[in-house]
């Protein structure tokens, strides 16, 4: 089991450990149009999955804007898809995307079931955040191999954007 922190408390994360070099696991998420989003949709592409508690928390919103900027800059270098995943409803995601004008990143919801969070080791299993996703970054190359993984050790710290993008241009 992994632990992260929130304020001064320790929070347990449950799920299957994610290891660099192994094949990414299949998943089924829900798009903002309520259609399924699976790993196969991204086959042959470089993919950054960014998980977080909710688009309606200030830090999450800031980090998403930051990912959008990084994705915009990197699109001239290589084609990398950033997929933002949380338990927000597809309605909340679409409202957020429209109000923010986020053109360079994609969104999917795992509100239906905790399986994705379990399989990517981001499911918070105690504290007031039980059932939410922890903040994590998983980078998958065009051969579906995991190149980079960061489980952010403090729930409200920012991820290392640079390390994530650089892991996919090696």
């Amino acid at each position, binding site marked *: 089991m992994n632990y992260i922190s929130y304020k001064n408390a320790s929070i347990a994360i449950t799920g299957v450990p994610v290891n660099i070099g192994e094949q990414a696991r299949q998943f089924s998420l829900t798009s903002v149009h309520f259609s399924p989003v699976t790993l196969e949709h991204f086959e042959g592409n470089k993919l950054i999955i960014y998980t977080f508690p909710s688009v*309606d928390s200030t830090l999450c919103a800031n980090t998403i804007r930051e990912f959008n900027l990084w994705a915009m800059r990197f699109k001239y270098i290589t084609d990398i898809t950033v997929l933002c995943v949380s338990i927000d409803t597809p*309605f909340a995601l679409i409202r957020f995307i429209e109000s923010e004008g986020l053109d360079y990143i994609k969104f999917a919801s795992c509100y239906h079931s905790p399986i994705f969070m379990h399989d990517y080791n981001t499911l918070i299993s105690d504290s007031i955040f039980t059932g939410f996703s922890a903040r994590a970054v998983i980078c998958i190359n065009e051969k579906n191999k995991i190149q980079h993984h960061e489980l952010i050790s403090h729930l409200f710290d920012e991820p290392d954007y640079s390390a994530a993008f650089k892991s996919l241009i090696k």
Partner: protein
Amino acid sequence: MKKTTLSALIACFLSTATLAANQFSTVTDSAPLGIGNTVTLETAPLQLTGHAVKLGDMMPSIMLKQNDLSDFDTTAPSKNIRIYNIIASVDTPVCDEQLHELSDYLNANNTSGIDFLAVSADTPFAQSRFAKAAEINKQITFLSDAVSHSFGQKTGTQIAGIGLLTRTIIVVDKNNIIRHIQRVPELTTTPDLTKAITIAKQYI
């Protein structure tokens, strides 16, 4: 139901966001909850799932999250009557209108002795954002079923396959006994709030 049909339906539901406010009619009819029943979304039926509660039942014990992420237990003792306003999502136009109607009612009327609860599968963060932005009356307590969907499962208000709750109003007395249920047969109509309040007042 095929996934393609479902997406088309939801897209249709979303498109109503551009229409004017106060366009959704309030209805008095009610349909049963739970597995085996359907709710229509304009043109097509959506299956419901979960165990249906009925009049005279005890409200089952369900843990929901309040906006500050603290737990709310539906069976915790209460001195007040509870009216559960169960909605699909604060980010849809019908729910927006329904909550404004309730908020306006509370601004204009004395409803002491009754607790007003709004339950949806939205995150507590989304509910909190909505309540502030829409200036919803603070007597309404928002409760989130986002994490476990257990409210939907234990009351039969879950829409199968899309992870949202179907629009329902439930009145629960001080002994936690269910005294009134109205589950609207069509998702884009709103339940009769006045009737629920009239019934609630009989149990104060």
